[in-house]
């Protein structure tokens, strides 16, 4: 099939970007969205033009590198799907596709569709460490974790940090990301000693990065390729309020 693409092209962080139209020819429905862009790029290279820059790594939906807004939806808007796992069978011949980078003050565009997501790394860093005993490891079975907590912590830990939550949020808020990280440690026994200082530090850093606030709209969770539930945000709010009641600053 043949497609028309409107792609955001931007030389570097300093330059002004613009949309450029490309034709994607002879696309096979079994290709992934990134493979379709690879085909377009091959043609651009042969013509001596600069290929479209986009981030990618594992191409199996678990690394969180890829991500672009496709026709107004982060990752193309299919449930639980990253851009690399989005297949061209969801499009039909003659479709016009708009491809844009994540848009947020905290995620400046570096080049074309690549944004700088270091703000997420700094939020993780602000979370700090968990205390662990040195010496001989105790028998794993002595630490009890209720089944439902293990499940919920695992669901939150599925976050790959792709940034689709920020991209989808009308306020470019990073609450779903930060809350997922806080939930996955806060629900497990290993995360308890630093639980309240961690939430305070991470929320502080999140705000410092210039993300917006949460208006409980739910676009983040709907766009999340790992389907992290909105309930993690309620949990983060609760932990922060409890931390402040305990006087953690």
């Amino acid at each position, binding site marked *: 099939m043949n497609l028309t693409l409107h792609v955001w092209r931007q030389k570097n962080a300093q330059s002004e970007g613009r949309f450029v139209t490309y034709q994607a020819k002879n696309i096979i429905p079994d290709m992934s969205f990134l493979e379709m862009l690879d085909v377009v790029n091959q043609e651009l290279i042969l013509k001596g033009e600069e290929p479209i820059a986009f981030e990618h790594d594992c191409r199996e939906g678990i690394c969180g590198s890829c991500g672009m807004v496709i026709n107004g939806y982060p990752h193309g808007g299919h449930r639980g799907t990253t851009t690399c796992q989005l297949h061209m069978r969801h499009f039909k011949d003659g479709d016009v596709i708009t491809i844009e980078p994540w848009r947020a*003050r905290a995620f400046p565009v570096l080049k074309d569709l690549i944004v700088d997501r270091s703000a997420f790394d700094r939020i993780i860093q602000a979370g700090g460490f968990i205390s662990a005993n040195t010496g001989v490891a105790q028998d794993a079975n002595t630490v009890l974790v209720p089944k439902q907590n293990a499940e919920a912590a695992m669901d939150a830990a599925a976050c790959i940090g792709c940034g689709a939550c920020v991209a989808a949020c009308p306020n470019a808020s990073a609450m779903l990301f930060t809350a997922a990280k806080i939930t996955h440690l806060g629900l497990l026994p290993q995360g308890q000693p630093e639980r309240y200082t961690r939430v305070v530090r991470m929320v502080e850093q*999140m705000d410092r990065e210039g993300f917006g606030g949460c208006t409980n709209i739910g*676009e983040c969770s709907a766009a999340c390729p790992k389907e992290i539930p909105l309930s993690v945000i309620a949990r983060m709010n609760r932990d922060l309020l409890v931390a402040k009641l305990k006087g953690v600053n």
Partner: protein
Amino acid sequence: MTAALTLYRTTIGKKAVMAITGFIGYGFVILHMIGNLKIFEGAEGFNEYAHFLRTVGYPLVPERGLLWTMRIILLASVILHVVAAIQLTRLDWASRPRGYRETRRKQATFASLTLRWGGLAIFLFIVYHLAHLTFGLGIPNFGGHETAYQNVVAGFSNPINVVIYIAAVGALGMHLYHGVWSMFQTLGLNGPRTDGLWRGLATVSGILLFLGFSTVPIAVITGIVR
């Protein structure tokens, strides 16, 4: 105290202030609606209720003591709610300097996307509403709370006031449809098991308050209450 201030510095802290002050407002509109419906008891019943609001708690507290306590709490809540909303809106708007060419939504509702505009509409309505039925602007022979019933009948005999009132309580219903659920979510009192409960409460609150408030002006303009 330090904790309260450092909490307010965070976006979540500002939202918590909005949730708590919103809860106070929510409680107020429920009581206000119940009070309004006493119009169907007739002039005597309604005016007696207006009188009761001034004497409730007396002699334990001074006359109008509870009324003024409530008024001060409500005024403080409105101020805090609006200030936090403005601060958060500024942060939210600054967070995406360049928008998308194309944006689609999956989860957003009309109520959630227009929350702040609905809030602005409600704020303007409060100013108008106080001028109209508390201070008697545009009501001939306005007699304050002594003639509360007659004020309502005179106030709503003009269809323009009825239209403004119903539009405003419509905005209130929409605001609560998203806001009541948000309150619990923001204060961390929500989880997978309670989500349906709070969504349900928000929907029922929005609809019932809209219907309850609209009944009075409709009853006046249709001549059921006169």
